[in-house]
């Protein structure tokens, strides 16, 4: 599959927006202006951008910690994101849940719970639910290298395989789970080696190259849409910052960071946009500038919004009450 200009530019926009928001969040954290921790997907923006570019209106996403780009790709605005991080009353979780734990029913994006792996079966079930109702739906379930060690990962992938549910299990192998390197996490060569054990296809992709990913996965997604079954994807990428901003990630060798810094997904996407004639440097700069001001405005607007009212604490524990 060859990507068209619209998709190419859309991916670039998603990545730029994601980066701009997260840079702001990082700054806010170090200024002491964020309540709680800050966790980003810095350097991993391509996976969410590429999968969102392949997804249709009824598709389901269950993003993990590092997948702000998936949220943005599915339609989350900078405003939604800041409202969430600032715990605003009108944000996606109304201040009840924190940071990356938000979603959007309209966008088919689920708000993750923290227990790693636990959202994969939710993704599988949501796709089953939509398909039961006759909708053409495919799922995109994100998980880290560390998250593949959970029982939930195994149960859910096997369940999807047995029930023929079209879900892309997107493993973002970013070399570390918090401080734990992959050699203390698993012993197979590549995590896609697990695919055979579920009787499904496994595909390795360069997780920093959105264009290549979209081109490689496009036909696969179309195929599982028609012939429903899960597929396991392992995207090689790198967490370019600490687990959270409190973490100096001194346990990561500098050479490894340097190697991936040289392959920054946004730099690469800009180069590809130029090469394909979708946007030259000036056009990309202009886009980045526009996005930056959307992000700046959104932050300011969210900051001015109200916080949740303590009197609402016990409302909505149950639906329908």
């Amino acid at each position, binding site marked *: 599959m060859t990507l068209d200009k619209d998709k190419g530019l859309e991916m670039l926009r998603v990545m730029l927006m994601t980066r701009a928001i997260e840079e702001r969040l990082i700054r806010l954290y170090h200024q002491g202006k964020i309540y709680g921790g800050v966790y980003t997907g810095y350097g991993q923006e391509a996976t969410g951008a590429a999968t969102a570019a392949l997804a249709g209106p009824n598709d389901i996403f269950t993003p993990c910690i590092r997948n702000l780009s998936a949220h943005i790709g599915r339609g989350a605005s900078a405003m939604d994101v800041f409202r969430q991080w600032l715990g605003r009353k009108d944000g996606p979780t109304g201040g009840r849940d924190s940071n990356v734990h938000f979603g959007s029913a309209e966008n088919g994006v689920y708000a993750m719970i923290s227990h790693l792996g636990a959202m994969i079966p939710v993704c599988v079930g949501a796709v089953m639910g939509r398909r039961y109702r006759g909708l053409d739906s495919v799922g995109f379930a994100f998980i880290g290298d560390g998250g593949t060690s959970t*029982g939930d990962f195994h149960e859910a992938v096997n369940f999807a395989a047995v029930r023929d549910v079209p879900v892309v299990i997107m493993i973002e192998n970013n070399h570390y789970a918090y401080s734990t390197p992959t050699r203390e996490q698993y012993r197979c060569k590549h995590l896609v080696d697990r695919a055979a054990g579920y009787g499904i296809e496994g595909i390795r992709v360069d997780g920093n190259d959105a264009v290549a990913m979209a081109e490689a996965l496009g036909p696969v997604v179309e195929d599982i849409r028609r012939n429903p079954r899960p597929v396991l994807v392992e995207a090689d990428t790198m967490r370019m910052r600490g687990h959270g901003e409190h973490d100096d990630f001194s346990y990561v060798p500098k050479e490894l960071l340097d190697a991936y810094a040289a392959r920054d997904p946004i730099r690469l996407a800009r180069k590809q946009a130029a090469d394909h004639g979708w946007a030259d440097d000036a056009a990309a700069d202009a886009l980045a500038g526009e996005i930056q001001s959307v992000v700046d405005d959104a932050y300011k607007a969210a900051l001015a919004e109200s916080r949740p009212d303590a009197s609402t604490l016990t409302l909505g524990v149950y639906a329908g009450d």
Partner: protein
Amino acid sequence: MIESTYLEGIRAGLQAEMREDENVILFGQDIAAFGGAFKVTLGFLDEFGPKRVFNTPISESAMIGSAIGMATQGLRPVVELQFADFGLTAVHQIMNNAAMTHYRTGIPVPITLRMPCGGGFGGGPFHSEELEGLFCNMPGLKVVYPAFPGDARGLLVSAIRDPNPVIYLENKYLYRHVKEMIPRKADPVPLGIARICRTGRDAVILTYGAMVHESIQAAERVAADAGYGVMVIDMRTLKPYDEDTVLSAVAACNRVLIVHEGCRTCGFGAELAALVAEKAFHLLDAPVRRMTAPDVPVPFAPELEKAYRPDADKIEQALMELLEF
């Protein structure tokens, strides 16, 4: 009116809702052609077809997690756990995922988890557990526990229609041990309302599940033998529980015995005793009493299990002590 066992009541409730609403679907281990370990869903595959009734791998977390996904997309999945005990492999899905989603996101999660529980038949430590104490401590869950065939049906109908995750505890001992005449139509029994099974003014027993029947028996014996009138209340829904009925009963009777089949510490009886102590202190003529299993795994041998599990004899004795306090 038709005669129905407890198990038939469950089956009828499930069947009625599946006929009513095609978004009700059912899955679990061995529940399709085989009809489930207890044969509750026998015939369902034929009637409702493989899209609505299917087997799953032995993967409780995937079962419950996928039910959450389906429920948030318009279905009303009913998941059968083969035994409640095995639900403990997926507590994070029940508590953190199913029960907290609405509070966090405003999206309802209408799932019903059918959990066969309780002992009395030599099931041993892993096929006899009573887990309501755990589930009632999880914010966002509803917990239902019928004692009679009609309630089994009507509460299941309500559980399935409820927009929240409901733990539906079904007592295995009662499956074939209780029968009653019930109306043909499967009307819902509202959640959150206790049932007064027997009236009386000398003491009240607060109980649920299999212990309702043991309590009624004990109450009848103290009536026959000593002329006491003992009210018996079947809580039916444990979360949210029916505070009003409990408090009115305490006001009327002034003596309270709480009976349940599961462990004592932090069990549901502790919650009821705490409620009474907080809100009906001035109405009591004697200390609240709990008659529960001890904090011990459910033992296998009949001698041990009999000693473990409350029954009419033990309840009668506790009642007499309470009445003569």
